[in-house]
């Protein structure tokens, strides 16, 4: 293929070379400028957060958030890590839940999406509707809570952090859309060779869907990583608290208590949480996954399907 390309290119070179380079250049400039602007807008607030997490509380109260810490202090982090054992446990829970949940969830999502996009599956539209309908109507918090706590008896168990989030209609549908762009010729030829559905799925579809898997996998993982809601509702044991919930508790307790004080007439003597603490929490919660993100990026590689068809 490359041989062909070079010949083509050299054929065209004298005629359109200058013009091509011009618009290539234009696009490149446009690209860098536009992306840089977006990147700046995205990073500045984050810098504010980092800086505020390292600033003395009183300075924040007086001057608000600033890009560079004028009065350096690691108090917020010290407070967060005051009970390192708990913090480590929280990290552990979150990592375990994210890893298990993402693997299982991604697999199930892909499997479901695969079936749904099969054009020879007569009921695919009906099942798509079946799944999609669940995003339209909902019975609300109470019945769902009852289901999980009373009928499935999942309260205060690690699995309750994984199970309810395992499948998400949005991801199934997006994955289905990605998979349907893979030419059918591939699966057809495998079928002719006598392979069963499941084998085709595992040995053909999965490897060919790397960008899709990487994307959806990332989203599922992020969902698990950031989740505090399920822990809030269902976990009371300290050993099973994920990171986000642990941080959220620390913060929310003081805030809500203060509000209750106003109504109940009780006396407020606790230290109210600091702005710098909120910021430090964001950093602590975000750090690990951000570090992992670049590793995932390598899966956004193009053109895996082409070779397969030709070959």
């Amino acid at each position, binding site marked *: 293929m490359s041989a062909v390309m070079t010949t083509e290119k050299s054929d065209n070179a004298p005629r359109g070379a200058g013009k091509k380079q011009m618009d*290539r250049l234009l696009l490149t400039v446009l690209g860098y400028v536009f992306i840089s602007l977006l990147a700046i807008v995205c990073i500045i607030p984050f810098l504010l957060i980092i800086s505020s997490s390292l600033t003395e509380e009183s300075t924040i109260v007086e001057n608000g958030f600033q890009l560079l810490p004028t009065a350096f202090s690691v108090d917020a982090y010290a407070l967060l890590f005051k009970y390192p054992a708990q913090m480590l446990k929280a990290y552990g829970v979150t990592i375990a839940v994210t890893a298990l949940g993402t693997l299982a969830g991604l697999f199930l999502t892909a499997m479901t999406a695969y079936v749904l996009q099969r054009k020879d599956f007569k009921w695919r539209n009906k099942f798509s509707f079946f799944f999609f309908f669940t995003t339209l109507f909902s019975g609300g918090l109470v019945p769902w809570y009852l289901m999980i706590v009373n009928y499935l008896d999942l309260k205060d168990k690690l699995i309750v952090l994984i199970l309810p989030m395992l499948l998400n*209609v949005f991801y199934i549908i997006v994955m289905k859309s990605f998979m349907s762009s893979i030419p059918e010729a591939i699966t057809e030829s495998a079928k002719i060779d006598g392979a069963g559905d499941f084998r085709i799925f595992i040995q053909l579809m999965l490897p060919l869907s790397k960008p899709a898997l990487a994307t959806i996998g990332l989203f599922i993982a992020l969902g698990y990583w950031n989740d505090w809601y399920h822990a809030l509702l269902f976990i009371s044991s300290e050993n099973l608290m994920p990171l986000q919930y642990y941080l959220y508790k620390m913060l929310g307790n003081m805030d809500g208590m203060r509000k209750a004080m106003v109504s109940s007439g009780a006396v407020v003597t606790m230290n109210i949480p600091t702005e710098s603490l909120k910021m430090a929490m964001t950093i602590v919660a975000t750090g690990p996954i951000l570090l992992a993100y670049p590793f995932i990026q390598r899966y956004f590689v*193009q053109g895996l399907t082409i070779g397969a068809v030709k070959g």
Partner: protein
Amino acid sequence: MLTPAVLFFILFAYVPMAGIVLAFKQFNYGGGIFGSPWNGLDNFRFFFESGNAWTVTRNTALYNIAFIIVNNVLQIAAAILLFEAVGKWFRKLSQTVMFLPYFISWVVVGAIAYNLFNYDVGTLNSILAAIGLERIDIYNTPSYWPFILVLVSAWKALGYGSVMYLAAITGIDTEMYEAAEIDGANVFQRIIHITIPNLYPTIIILVLLAVGNIFRGDFGMFYNMVGNNGLLFSSTDVIDTFVFRSLTTSNEIGLSAAAGFFQSVLGFATILLANYAVRKYDKDHALF
């Protein structure tokens, strides 16, 4: 192979869906979901008799439409540029950076916004004052907020959404690009005539999915940005924040179930229409 998914949704979505009846009942603990007495359309009254039903519904829908358009356009543009126009390291770096806003909770975003926009010591007004211009009272002027909220929403969803489009772009057959080059197309023509059309399936799917939720507001964003500032409600109040405020006095499950049911019905009607329209255009691209 579909069994696990079907089972999952039956358990976690369809069975609890029975709870929709709560919208028509006066819930008490003794009766539970099925034993509590019916009260007809009573639970809907607070919403429809408030005089605000139309405003908040309109706001919810309009904001969502704006979000869909602006967010997607921005994300597609970013994805294309990232793919076509910039070098590998720059792309990796900027992708990571663009993802950062996703991790910032709305509570923190609200705090940062307040820091930026407040009248007395906000960054924006300090700069304006320093260069001799008059200060702007953002928090008391409803007309600025649609713009602010749309921009903030786009900012927050940028990294997340552009990843989706980037993945779609990498799946496009490069043969088409080569063919276009041979035909003498320049880069812009190639983008307009090949890349974007190939993204249509993804765009349609994402838009359809968003349309189903067109009557649900992003509570986190609206609540943390606007707070309880009544002056801004005319242009920023959405169904979810309105219902939340109404229920601070009592935790009537029936009332919130009624509001939720209202949102569901409207969303359902909308998506049926939208999906039908897409089906007419291309059967394969529809949701169902």
